[in-house]
């Protein structure tokens, strides 16, 4: 396990938006995530998953309650946003975007960054991005932008990784590649990962533990520890056990199944 990977402890957190915090998203949520754990959060559109991720990543402050990172001093964190395209910097080329943290830092030498990025791409089998490295984000497709956003997160070698619908724009081939890359990254560096998705398969193919959330207001309505070890093969999808768990979680979220 990565020594620096922090655990996350959220105590009674609530978050409301609006000028006077009149729009509650969730109330009194308690969460414990162990260092190096891979947690998937599954729930319907508009349930507040992104807001929860913002609060857990400390990009937004909780209206009430506290979020603490356990056993971490200084750590690198990375966030892949649902608006992956908006989160890229249009004035930087693709490779500069991937290495943006180092690119922005005055101290780091910039000459070797292209090489570093290329090495990352071959390490994670993402060589499809290679011809795009010197293009600008506005000249590549939406799916390619999402690949860049993910590569950017991998490049940071984060101890804490937040993924908000990270595969939403990918075609079957790239989705498969990225699922593999993500698992490879997790297996080698063991960061603490929080992945949010409304795609049950994304969650089931990657996470060790799944939290299902319901909406209005958002609350955690179920929790599953997945029995499969990582990395997982895509073929897992066709097994009966996968289908069973998938059905169980879905019916809990969408049918309010009390099982």
């Amino acid at each position, binding site marked *: 396990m990565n020594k620096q990977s922090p655990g996350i402890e959220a105590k009674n957190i609530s978050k409301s938006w609006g000028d006077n915090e009149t729009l509650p998203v969730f109330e009194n949520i308690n969460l414990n995530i162990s260092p190096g754990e891979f947690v998937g959060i599954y729930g319907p559109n508009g349930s507040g998953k992104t807001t929860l991720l913002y609060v857990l990543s400390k990009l937004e402050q909780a209206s009430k309650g506290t979020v603490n990172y356990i056993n971490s001093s200084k750590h690198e964190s990375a966030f892949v*946003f649902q608006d992956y395209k908006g989160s890229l910097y249009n004035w930087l080329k693709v490779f500069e975007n991937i290495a943006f943290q180092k690119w922005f830092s005055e101290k780091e030498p910039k000459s070797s960054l292209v090489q570093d990025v290329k090495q990352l791409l071959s390490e994670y089998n993402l060589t499809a991005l290679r011809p795009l490295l010197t293009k600008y984000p506005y000249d590549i497709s939406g799916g390619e932008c999402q690949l860049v956003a993910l590569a950017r997160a991998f490049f940071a070698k984060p101890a804490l990784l937040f993924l908000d619908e990270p595969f939403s724009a990918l075609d079957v081939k790239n989705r498969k590649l990225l699922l593999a890359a993500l698992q490879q990254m997790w297996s080698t560096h063991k960061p603490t990962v929080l992945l949010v998705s409304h795609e049950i398969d994304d969650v089931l193919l990657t996470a060790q533990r799944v939290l299902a959330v319901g909406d209005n207001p958002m609350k955690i309505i179920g929790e599953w520890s997945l029995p499969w070890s990582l990395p997982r093969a895509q073929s897992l999808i066709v097994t009966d056990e996968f289908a069973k768990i998938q059905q169980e979680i879905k019916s809990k979220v969408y049918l309010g199944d009390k099982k």
Partner: protein
Amino acid sequence: MKRYVILGIILIVLIWQLIVSVGFFSQLVLPSPSKVAVALYTFVTSVKSLSDLGITTFRFFVSFLISSGLGVIIGVIISRFPRIGSVLSFPLDFFRSLPAPALFPIFMLFLGISDIARISLVIFSSALIVAVYTNHGIQNCHQIKIRAAKAAGIRGYSLLSNVILREAKPEIATGLRISLSVTLILIVVLEMLAGSTTGLGKRIIDDHMLFRTTDMYASIIIVGFLGYLLNRLFLLWHRRYVHWAGK
């Protein structure tokens, strides 16, 4: 495309020549293109007129560069400190709406009838324009870009220079483009006003007073080309350094 541009020039000259040929106006009001062409040649071969062109260009660059820098700094301050922004919002809008030449007497009272008074007024008005656009550009920053940087631990000056100002740059550039035109207008207008001894504005007004109409037209054409060139220069800069604007 270039061919059409040249066509536009030829068209103007043709219409001009046509009006002259009809003989509706005296040569004093509207000299023929060929006469003005001769005056233009005299202009570009005379040290005195070239130095007037040089001085106007110099005043322009000094005012434009200082007002751009000041404007961006003021814009950053008011966008970063909302209280200061609220306090300054009325004065900024007021002075921005006030036609600058109306303020010239005040500037003259304080700074004397000098280049300092003229350039200060131009800087004052142009900086306001840039400040307003800079503030607006920063307010409209895509929040997700700032969040992405913050998530990676980028804060403070690095966040401002690497993300916020870059994100606001297309809008700042719009402000700069407007301020460029305003700066040139004001420089020439103020050169026409009391106490001025040099510059293209002064030339135009003197030629007008002394009925040297042909020379006046030549100077006006030179000012036109100066403005046109400055705009082209700006567009070149824009294409290279703000290539992501509108994308």
